[in-house]
């Protein structure tokens, strides 16, 4: 015979303060757990979304980032003649030759200096990355010293307002537009004409080239051909998404290890908290348990009732923790990305999988914390329990 659910529910309600304190502890733990997951997801989403599935990027072999990569003009031309490269509206190959450098700008809030990526692009870049839209001002004119700044740059850094001049590489560059790249890594970049950037920085070679494949499935074919071609052997072709995923690896791994350590320690704390509460619940209800058993409820019903009570507590705590964590999705953070050696802005991403993991985590804490006290309740001797008062 099962013990009615209302008994479990009312037991929690009868000890409101203790219930609330335990719930608070559990929810804080779940909050931190969910927060760390959201941070890792947010970073990953930002960087992975930066690449499109049917784009491919060419870098020099062994170059982990665009900063240290070199692609010369001749090789870029070879790429443009490949049959797998899609065709732009103007009939030319849909390929952008790019030059990536890092400059320093001052942050608005802390006044500290930070690294910002400047990406010199070809005219095809806008068609290649349709997510990069100008939301204020106008696109820069090719052949001039005009630049467009990403949304994150515009909001976080000083001296990049529309119409101002930004000095770098011995020239002055006018900000003519602000772009929204839909939360991707391009939101944290400055774009300009590749040839102008190369001239100013005195660099004769590009950093990378990105092109659209006619079909995503043709990737292997073009990769094999480029590898066989002696003129392009020093290059490495990657899917754009894979490239950006690799970029986030170091940081994501760090966040994950740190998160794992912190939440493991925390969950031990929370389990202990739940145990204290449940042991107390059992101790103060010894007579009740004796009565239940005398009425004919079996040991396993008593075990189940206390376990359900603990799990209920955990679910409520978990829900509160996730609720708290959902507030984080309004916050945006930025950090140095080791891959590109520049600052990248990203948010906390509350995905269904994060919510599910957080709730499962909470329930697990409830079961672990409630099990031993529930066993103690179930093993109480009827006569002794009734006499305990």
């Amino acid at each position, binding site marked *: 015979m099962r013990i009615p659910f209302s008994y479990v529910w009312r037991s929690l309600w009868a000890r409101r303060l203790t219930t609330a304190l335990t719930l608070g502890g559990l929810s804080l*733990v779940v909050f931190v757990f969910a927060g760390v997951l959201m941070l890792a997801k947010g970073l990953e989403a930002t960087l992975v979304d930066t690449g499109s599935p049917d784009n491919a990027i060419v870098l020099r072999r062994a170059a982990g980032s665009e900063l240290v990569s070199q692609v010369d003009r001749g090789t870029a031309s070879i790429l443009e003649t490949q049959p797998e490269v899609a065709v732009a509206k103007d009939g030319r190959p849909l390929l952008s030759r790019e030059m990536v450098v*890092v400059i*320093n700008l001052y942050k608005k809030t802390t006044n*500290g200096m930070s690294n910002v990526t400047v990406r010199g692009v070809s005219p095809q870049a806008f068609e290649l990355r349709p997510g990069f839209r100008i939301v204020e001002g106008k696109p820069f004119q090719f052949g001039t010293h005009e630049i467009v700044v990403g949304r994150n740059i515009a909001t976080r850094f000083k001296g990049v307002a529309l119409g101002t001049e930004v000095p770098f590489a011995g020239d002055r560059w006018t900000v003519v537009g602000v772009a929204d790249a839909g939360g991707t890594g391009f939101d944290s970049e400055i774009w300009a004409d590749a040839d102008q950037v190369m001239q100013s920085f005195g660099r004769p070679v590009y950093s990378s080239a990105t092109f659209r494949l006619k079909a995503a499935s043709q990737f292997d074919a073009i990769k094999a051909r480029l590898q066989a071609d002696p003129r392009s052997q020093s290059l490495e072709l990657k899917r754009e998404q894979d490239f950006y995923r690799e970029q986030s690896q170091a940081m994501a791994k760090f966040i994950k290890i740190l998160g794992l350590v912190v939440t493991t320690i*925390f969950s031990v*704390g929370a389990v*202990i*908290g739940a145990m204290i509460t449940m042991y107390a619940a059992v101790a*103060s209800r010894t007579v009740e348990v004796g009565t239940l058993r005398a009425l004919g409820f079996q040991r396993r019903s008593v075990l189940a009732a206390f376990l359900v009570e603990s799990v209920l507590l955990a679910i409520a705590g978990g829900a509160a923790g996730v609720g708290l964590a959902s507030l984080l999705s309004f916050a945006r953070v930025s*950090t140095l990305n080791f891959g590109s050696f520049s600052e990248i802005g990203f948010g906390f991403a509350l995905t269904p999988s994060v919510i599910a993991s957080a709730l499962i985590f909470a329930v697990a804490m409830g079961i672990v914390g409630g099990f031993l006290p529930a066993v103690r309740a179930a093993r109480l001797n009827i006569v002794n329990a009734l006499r305990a008062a």
Partner: protein
Amino acid sequence: MKLLKIVFKNLFRHRLRTILTMLGIATAVMAFGLIRTIVGAWNAGVEASAANRMITRQSVSFIFPLPLPYRQQIARIPGVDAISWANWFGGVYGDPNDFKNFWPRFAVDPETFYDLYPEYQVPADQLAQFRKERNACILGRKLAEQHGFKIGDVITMEGDIFPGRWEWVVRGIYTGRDQTVDETQMHFQWNYLYEQVQAREPGRPVDAGWYILRVQNADAMPGVAKAVDDQFVNSRAPTKTETEKAFQQGFVAMSSAIITSLQVISVVIVGIILLVLANTIVMAVRERRREYAVLKTLGFSARHLIVLIFGESLVIAACGGLIGLALTFPMVAGFGAALPTFFPIINVAPVTIVLAFGAALLAGVVAAFLPTTRVVRMSIVSGLRTVG
């Protein structure tokens, strides 16, 4: 004295609960200590920077090099005592996805570098050998231990900034002057870099990554910075000169978001300690309402009850705090070992110990506050009437 005895008797009434509470506090204190230590490790570079050194780098970003002739021009500036330079090499060693295989590799000037960095201590004979051999390198003690590198070993890696295959022979191991010194770096001759790039990629210039300046006294630093930067302001490669400390802070500032979130977490931990402890005290006090009423009847004053409850709370908090601190040290060591290259220097600072223990005691006081006020205000009759 009698009261203290009662406090201890009370602690042993629910032995399991007391022990669990202490363990709960211990885990939280340990987490607090670990996180504070990680934040400290992040700032380790700033703490370790010398007061008499400055860094001159390209003003746009330090990924751009500076021309070699700048060396003589900077050395002539009054106040500059000595000058050296270095380049970031990068490179890929073994499996790039294994964190262990990433460590800082610098091309340094063999003649001057170790004079400017006295904290890297190299035995004299090893240093002499390093200066003689073009492809020699010197490794930090920790780095050598992690990979089992010994003197005479050959290290090969794939270059990224400077492409091709590179080979060095280990000719020295440096040790840090104290535990704030990074012992995971690799230094090799700048000349080797220069000559190899000349041979491999004719026409590619190899300049200095940055210059390291030693200044006679700290007061001269702003003047030196201005003098250096003014000299090159209209050149193709304008410079930015700052103290080593400011230079290091620049790196830390870029990842400030991570540090901020860690600090938020450490505050949350204090909250958790408080909740765990408050729960236990509230429960204990509720169970003993009748006893407190009896004590009041017998003539014990509010002061006595306060001592009883606060005493119990503080004893639990202090014991938990001590266990937590004892656990912090192995935990930090384990964490440092899991991410060796992220945190070359990771030590538990004395201030962390004080803060962690202080947080536990603070929680002890706050947790006892509410139950105490309730008991003190409780009328004897209602207390006696309590059904436990």
